[in-house]
């Protein structure tokens, strides 16, 4: 009987393992992963890494240029802003805020969106209609307008910015999960699970959802990138964490007027946003190629 088995019988590999190996061979994805890891470590270890207190002002050190400029000093490697705060320290703590916003808003959207999408795809009919029409309504709002409206209603704060971003992200999760669940429901193993007497929620959570994880993981990673960007946009507009919270978008907003005399104050937060978004996007694209080839353009 062993002759007709396609794989070695002792080879108990989970189907995911091959896909992760494929991901490892993809060099851009690995680059993205490295950036993401550095970003996460920076955020977690912020108090250890940052040379200064990110909110401490110093009237003697206003607008110091970076160390490689004439007049720069090793004390403030990336220079200081108009209140004399160390930019490097603010960037490091800003990573923390960005990561928090990304994880919280994407996490919330993931849970709510997956549940709604799963219910819609599994039960279809009336529930599907109601849920998906609400999702369509959310999607009908211009991209950044909805978070602005939500924050305007709830009042500007970091927490409300997270809620606002989460609400805008729910539909993309709901749609992806609904599509996958619809597809999985036609497969025999779902009927088989029902035929052995499993309850609906059991079929949905244990049998169907694990099979929908591929596209979900991809969407989550790519959503981290856009959540960081959207969080920066909201704080640029002053709708997120209030001063003196070190937030990348807010740092750019505050230094707008200084672009001609002290461009570094604005450039470094911009580079930080760029790198974080790029890292998540590269990694997400690699994951997509490995886990959900059908989603490729």
């Amino acid at each position, binding site marked *: 009987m062993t002759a007709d088995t396609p794989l070695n019988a002792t080879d*108990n590999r989970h189907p995911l393992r091959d896909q992760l190996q494929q991901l490892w061979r993809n060099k851009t994805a690995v680059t993205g992963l490295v950036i993401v890891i550095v970003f996460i470590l920076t955020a977690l270890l912020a108090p250890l890494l940052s040379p200064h207190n990110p909110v401490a002002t110093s009237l003697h050190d206003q607008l110091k240029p970076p160390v490689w400029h004439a007049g720069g000093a090793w004390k403030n490697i990336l220079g200081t802003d108009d209140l004399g705060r160390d930019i490097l320290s603010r960037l490091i703590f800003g990573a923390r805020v960005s990561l928090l916003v990304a994880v919280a808003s994407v996490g919330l959207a993931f849970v709510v969106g997956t549940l709604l999408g799963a219910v819609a795809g599994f039960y279809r009919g009336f529930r599907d209609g109601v849920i998906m029409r609400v999702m369509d309504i959310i999607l009908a709002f211009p991209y950044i307008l909805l978070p602005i409206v939500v924050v305007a209603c709830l009042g500007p704060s970091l927490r409300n910015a997270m809620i606002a971003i989460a609400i805008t992200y729910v539909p993309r999760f709901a749609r992806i999960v609904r599509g996958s669940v619809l597809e999985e429901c036609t497969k025999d193993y779902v*009927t*088989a699970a029902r035929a*052995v007497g*499993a309850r609906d929620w059991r079929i949905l959570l244990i049998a169907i959802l694990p099979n929908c994880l591929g596209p979900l993981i991809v969407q989550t990673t790519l959503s981290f990138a856009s959540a960081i960007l959207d969080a920066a946009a909201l704080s640029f507009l002053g709708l997120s964490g209030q001063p003196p919270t070190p937030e990348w978008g807010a740092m750019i907003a505050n230094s707008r007027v200084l672009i001609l005399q002290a461009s570094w104050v604005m450039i470094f937060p911009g580079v930080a946003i760029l790198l974080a978004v790029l890292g998540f996007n590269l990694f997400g694209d690699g994951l997509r190629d490995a886990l959900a080839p059908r989603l490729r353009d």
Partner: protein
Amino acid sequence: MAPPNLLEIRHLQTHFFVRGKVAKAVDDVSLAIAPGQTLGLVGESGCGKSVTAHAILQLIPVPPGRIVGGQILFEGTDLLRLSQARMRKIRGNRISMIFQEPMTSLNPVCTVGEQVAEVIRLHQGLSRSDAAARVVEMFQLVGIPAATSRLREYPHQMSGGMRQRVMIAMALACTPRLMIADEPTSALDVTIQAQILDLMNTLITETGASTLFITHDLGVIAEMAQHVAVMYAGKVVEYTDVRTLFAGPRHPYTIGLMRSIPVVGGRSRGRRLSTIPGTAPSLFNLPPGCMFSDRCPDAFADCRQVAPQLVPVGPNHIARCLKYA
């Protein structure tokens, strides 16, 4: 029949409602299975045999399908009247099912051991380790070599025959009274088919379970079943025991089916294999008279007008044909 039937289907009607039209997939089907007996259900694709099987466990997708009428009596209780919760207790426990495609009927992201264990824990409330021990036992019973190591494998690591053995292990794990086998060997190689049929025969005898065996292969029926119902376009057209059917089929459709089994050597040498001309009618657009009249070699004028009823054509032998009315 003296002993009460384990399963009795009475006038079952299952229709599918698609875009304002009605497809009568199962129309007035009555079947009975005595304890320990195997009933074969034969017919070509789309004749309603799988729908009948799914209807017993109420696995018909609603919508578009609906069980419109009839009764399904299992051990005397009508399954169609049971609550969802009580129906779940029957599924997989009292009545289990084996599917056609062993490739797709196992969940690709769980190990086969977990999947069988889940059924056991669901119905028998065994602890994790007790269930695992029972899985090993079941795997050995269905002839999976190196059972303890293979239960940690994923479905894609197993061959079709092995997967079907896993499905059988899952179906028998809770010692059901009735097993529904929906073309369990159609997707397998012929050599593996024979092994699986042998295995099922042994296990059916050992456990004393009744079986509803669905197939389009009359040869398989001869090997597995005591009684046979032949279905055509949602209706039972002939119903009798295996010996009577093979000795003297009465309905023209059954006769046609028998003739289209190739016989190697002997009298048939050099003769073309006979086939039944035409195709089965669309379930959306059934002819007014006999469903088979368009393809029937014996059809006469009345056949296109009058719908035939099941009439006795011998002891324990009924057929739906105007020739005998």
